[in-house]
């Protein structure tokens, strides 16, 4: 399927160009991320299903927010699904994941249950944090998901600390610390970069560049808009990846994770991605044009890309995809029902989990 491969590579470049205005760098010879990225049928179907679950889950969360079941802040991941799904495909048991507050997708990708996540969003006792954390603060020790952090950039130092623990224990696990183009301007990010490479800690810094830090575009906030180069003064290699193509993400993740496991230290992956919705539920997103959003949706949608390939290659029929869609909708509907019916935490929970 040579033509497909070519299409994939050029598609990656065009998305990269449209995502940032920096000139594209010559590809590094020692890093092939995104180039040898063909998926087999099983991988395509798995990626399709996992991304669809996040998309449908987030749409449902938006709906429940609108109905008042979810309160406070709620940041949806719609549009960025390929990043976390592709990354997760490269991880193994014991690898840790930590992120900021746009976190529902990461939880589902690590295998946390839709019911537990949705019930946390509605503030119910069956939620991952018994209803005490909410959208921005959720954790799963079992799935090695370390949150869910509401302070922009804090997860970068914490994720570096997870990697420190791996190195201290002498295991070969890798920590993946996700943060956005906005967090990339926080000071502690660079403090962490410095220590991570000084001590050769196994951490993949995944910068999800969705082009807007709340309402401020990358160009208006960043002197260096090529975030893959943000580790340069610490000697940390970094690569831009088409974050809308799950195959490119997976291929880059494979190489980055292998680099960390081999004890070479931290690595940066800048995922060029896009969020379709506003920053949070109350953001009308007036800082960008509708055409811009529509163009990403129609030309680069991560789920539609996989869907088109599955159909083109004859790996799935429309009916089979519909069946997956129904299955995913059933999971999401079940999680929403559970999250609405589950009781609020007992009042005695007010004073639990403060100290051990």
């Amino acid at each position, binding site marked *: 399927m040579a033509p497909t491969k070519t299409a994939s590579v050029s598609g990656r470049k065009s998305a990269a160009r449209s995502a940032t205005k920096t000139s594209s760098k010559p590809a590094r010879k020692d890093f092939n991320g995104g180039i040898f990225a063909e998926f087999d049928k099983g991988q395509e179907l798995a990626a399709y299903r996992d991304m669809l679950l996040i998309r449908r889950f987030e749409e449902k969360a938006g709906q429940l927010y609108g109905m008042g079941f979810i309160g406070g802040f709620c940041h949806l991941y719609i549009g960025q699904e390929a990043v976390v799904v592709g990354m997760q495909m490269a991880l193994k048991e014991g690898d840790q994941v930590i992120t900021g507050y746009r976190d529902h997708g990461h939880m589902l990708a690590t295998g946390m249950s839709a019911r537990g996540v949705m019930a946390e969003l509605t503030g119910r006792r069956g939620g991952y944090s018994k209803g005490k954390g909410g959208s921005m603060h959720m954790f799963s020790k079992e799935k090695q998901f370390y949150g869910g952090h509401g302070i922009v950039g804090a997860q970068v130092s*914490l994720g570096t600390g*997870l990697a420190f623990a791996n190195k201290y224990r002498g295991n070969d696990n890798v920590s993946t610390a996700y943060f956005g183009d906005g967090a990339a301007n926080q000071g502690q990010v660079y403090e962490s970069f410095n220590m991570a490479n000084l001590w050769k800690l196994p951490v993949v810094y995944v910068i999800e560049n969705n082009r807007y830090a709340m309402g401020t575009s990358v160009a208006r906030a960043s002197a260096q808009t090529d975030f893959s180069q943000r580790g340069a003064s610490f000697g940390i290699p970094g690569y831009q990846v088409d974050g809308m193509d799950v195959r490119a993400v997976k291929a880059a993740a494979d190489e980055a994770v292998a680099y960390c496991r081999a004890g070479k230290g931290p690595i940066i992956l800048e995922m060029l991605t896009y969020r379709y919705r506003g920053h949070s539920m109350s953001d009308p997103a007036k800082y960008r044009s509708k055409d811009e959003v529509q163009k990403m949706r129609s030309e680069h949608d991560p789920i539609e890309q996989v869907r088109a390939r599955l159909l083109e290659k004859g790996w799935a029929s429309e009916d089979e995809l519909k069946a997956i869609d129904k299955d995913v909708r059933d999971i999401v509907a079940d999680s929403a029902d559970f999250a609405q019916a589950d009781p609020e935490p007992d009042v005695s929970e007010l004073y639990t*989990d403060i100290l051990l």
Partner: protein
Amino acid sequence: MPIDILMPALSPTMEEGTLSKWLKQEGDKVTSGDVIAEIETDKATMEVEAVDEGVIGKLLVPAGTENVKVNTKIAVLLAEGESADSIGSSAPAAPKADADTPAAASDAAGGKARQSAEEPTAAADSKVPAQPKVDVASDPDIPAGTEMVMTTVREALRDAMAEEMRRDEDVFVMGEEVAEYQGAYKITQGLLQEFGPRRVVDTPITEHGFAGVGVGAAMAGLKPIVEFMTFNFAMQAIDQIINSAAKTLYMSGGQMGAPIVFRGPNGAAARVAAQHSQDYAAWYSQIPGLKVVMPYTAADAKGLLKAAIRDPNPVIFLENEILYGQSFEVPKLDDFVLPIGKARIHKQGRDATVVSFGIGMTYAVKAVEELSKEGIDVELIDLRTIRPMDLPTVIESVKKTGRLVTVEEGYPQSSVGTEIATRVMQQAFDYLDAPILTIAGKDVPMPYASNLEKLALPNVGEIVQAVKTVCYK
């Protein structure tokens, strides 16, 4: 079954809005993500996206309608094969009359009323459960005949860390100059030689970053001792201490916390001026999820630091540079651990109670000696732990003496002393024979000039005078 499309809430506080425009009409096919309408809130114009697939069966609220309550049915979506006829009675044309109040509107849809719509009432407030009481064990008995060894606070702290590192492989020290340099104040002297660079980690000058790395390592199950060269520098790191270390156990519903000790010198040393001389006892004592320890003697420093390292919670351990070189008797025991959260009666007395902690005790001890020469018998309590605070011991003493003076070096507003005074006033008002007096540092940044610095700190004379005042002498 037809699906109701409801007027959405688009911010944490929205209760109603204007349905300004329909972008889909009856009979139009929609899929998830399609924009179907525009809504104006008090803040902005927002788009409403379809969540389900189907055909718009009926628009129930015309474009331009103002004050549409959240959760009012605004349209009905039909699934494949359904007809508009099936909508029938399930579609009230307008919000019900009783939907005037936000609570009623959301009840109608099964949603939760938003906090902003809930008026505070006495009935609701009275439902708050009582804070559970926690019992703290007393100090362990020291067996008769135990050898007491004169030890500096510095050595006691070092011994505590070394003993705990021998005991538990997960314990490690990190901070600026803790390894090769042997500690900026020589508290970690010899640890690198015994435990090696894996467990005694020199960090760059990067407080915010290494505090976060420490908390992350603790979340992964290690037990870091993070040394700040002084707590004045920990202000750079205070977000990680409070937002990450102190709150994670609660935010995770008890799944993971941070077994970590943040320690280092706190408060004024000598002539280091405003930016290096602040006492943070009151600051950290306000935070649920933290324990705050501030020892005075070498024995307490050792026993409490060992307890802090074993504690599964984040512990702030506030030391003092001036105390580092002072010597006290420390029992020679294999494993001397003291309970966090328990005050120590430094000297018994019957005329008045003085409560202090950390370096404040140095002034209090001298004042109590002078007062005894004048025939005033003071009970002196060393709080040792600021949070959780051993108020019962203070109250027991106040019940006996009826008079209370607190002593600390920190700023006077919202100080540890004012907290003690408030709680004693609330819980032992009838036992007080005089107003409680609080001695603290002066309400100024620490001056450099020697004479001014002395004036800014508490002094023995002030304490003597305060005790006489509460004794009406």
